[in-house]
């Protein structure tokens, strides 16, 4: 892998920075060099929020994603704002619960109502971040599923491990069945 840039974007409270940390740690377990940066407002919920993860075999100079290989957008605002910085061959993953209009159809676009599905299957929308992250990892194959599981176990508080592992399985399942 030469250089892989991922932007996870949405609004504050959706757990995107946590998802970024989980992804970064998983990439580290797979032996890559990795940086994770973030941008968020002073508020704890609402406002726009994003996490950038850069994965590389070699030293990473600039830690912010400028030209992404993969964009995850969980809100309309985030999708509109960052869509045009996605590379031509990049992967776009959107949550159709909130993203209703797509200004530009990329070749590799994956559309699923992640928040709705998570609410339905797990009883609460709180683990949408992990569901969509697991989906992202399975579809792009940037890190191994085992590394993701290990990273989840390490990063998440013990009380929430089982919930998050179920969310991960759900994400994998959605990816496997996508388009079928």
């Amino acid at each position, binding site marked *: 892998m030469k250089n892989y840039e991922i932007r996870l974007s949405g609004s504050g409270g959706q757990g995107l920075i946590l998802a970024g940390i989980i992804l*970064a740690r998983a990439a580290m377990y797979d032996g890559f060099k990795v940086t994770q940066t973030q941008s968020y407002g*002073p508020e704890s919920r609402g406002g726009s929020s994003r996490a950038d993860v850069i994965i590389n075999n070699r030293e990473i*100079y600039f830690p912010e994603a400028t030209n992404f290989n993969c964009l995850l957008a969980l809100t309309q605002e985030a999708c509109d704002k960052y869509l045009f910085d996605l590379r031509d061959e990049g992967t776009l993953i959107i949550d159709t619960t909130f993203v209703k209009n797509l200004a530009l159809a990329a070749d590799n676009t994956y559309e699923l109502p992640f928040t709705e599905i998570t609410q339905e299957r797990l009883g609460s929308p709180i683990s949408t971040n992990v569901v969509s992250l697991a989906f992202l990892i399975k579809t792009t194959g940037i890190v191994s599923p085992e590394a993701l599981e290990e990273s989840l176990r390490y990063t998440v508080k013990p009380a929430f491990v089982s919930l998050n592992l179920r969310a991960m399985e759900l994400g994998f399942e959605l990816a496997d069945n996508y388009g079928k």
Partner: protein
Amino acid sequence: MAKVVKEPKAKKKSEKQKADSKKKVIAPEITPEVPKEEEKVAAKPESKIKELQAKRDRKTVIMQGNEAVSYGALDAGVNFFAGYPITPSTEIAEILAAELPKRGGVFVQMEDEIASICAITGASLAGAKSLTATSGPGFSLMQEGIGFAKITETPCVVVNVQRLGPSTGMPTSPAQGDIMQTRWGSHGDSPAIVLYPASVKESYELTIRAVNLSEKYRTCVVLLMDEVIGHMRESVTLPDLANVKVINRIKPTVPPHWYKHYDENQKYLSPLASFGEGYRFHVSGLTHDSHGFPTNKSTEAAEMMDRLRKKIVYNIRDLVQIESHEMDDAKIAIFAAGITARAAKAAIAMARYEGIKVGLLRPLTIWPFPDDAVRKMLRDKDIVIVPELNQGQLIREIRRLTKDKSESEVVAIQRANGQLISPQDILRKIKEVC
């Protein structure tokens, strides 16, 4: 309030480790007849090393810049922290609040930043290795206290994780607006040692260096950070504790009645006694004589001011650190610090791919400014680009040192809107000027 500094933990551990590993080898040879005891001796070091590794595994980990500063402080032997949490430096206070008490250190959350700097200065005079962490608004409040630490020659470290200013500005956005403040923020001529890391690993290393330099030169050292470096996570492998070099202040060897609190020896570094050790001295922010008592004599004032100045100018070689990246054949040079230097490195890789010869000069110590190195390295370059996240601070120093270059040969990229300068911004400028 503070505890007397014992041997630093890092050193202690490494010595123990060494001693233990020796035991492990020697033990079976010396006592082959008493297997039970031998077992114990052999088992002990193993479990200890394991315990150490479990506590702080030096494997590759995901770590935040602020976390690295906290662990750097602990490994450098810091045992006193007083501060007031402020974004983007909060994690440092958070981690040290949890870790210091475990290691016999003291954590105090103060009512504000003025009290914080005073508390760490006081703790240091009582023998502690002390540190505080803040951001722009707090750093402005600390200026008077920093001046006091400098004139009283009391070792302490202030970490300033910069955010966009002036005033409370944008708490979660990066800026490099405090570069001049770290040098000239406090009134009067005073020495300044300021270190500027550009990665998580460097944050760890330069925190240790900041504590070491403060102890060695008896002054307040500032560690200047970018919001992005403080908050970003990176995969890092920290050096083993055995490889961490820790410097402690020189203690007086003379009998108490001979002790001078400000004593010149050959390299302008004088021994420092702590309160409560039997040495008598006075601490005052007024211009003072060698025992610390206020003076109005011009000769004594000159002597004191000279000592403060010479501490820095006589030791430039020890203080200055600068990184030169792809500079040998470069026609265009970029001078940048912190996160902007990382954008520059990415831009250089792209420019070189297109055949444009560009290099980077990055100061790790920004004050004292690396005058000689900059002059020498930039002499034969056609154009110097100075990108920075402010309205023009580093570029003043570069203009001062490149008098032979015309205005158009020293090019600025300046931004103060909470956004980073990206590699593409720098690349565009490189193409514009070449």
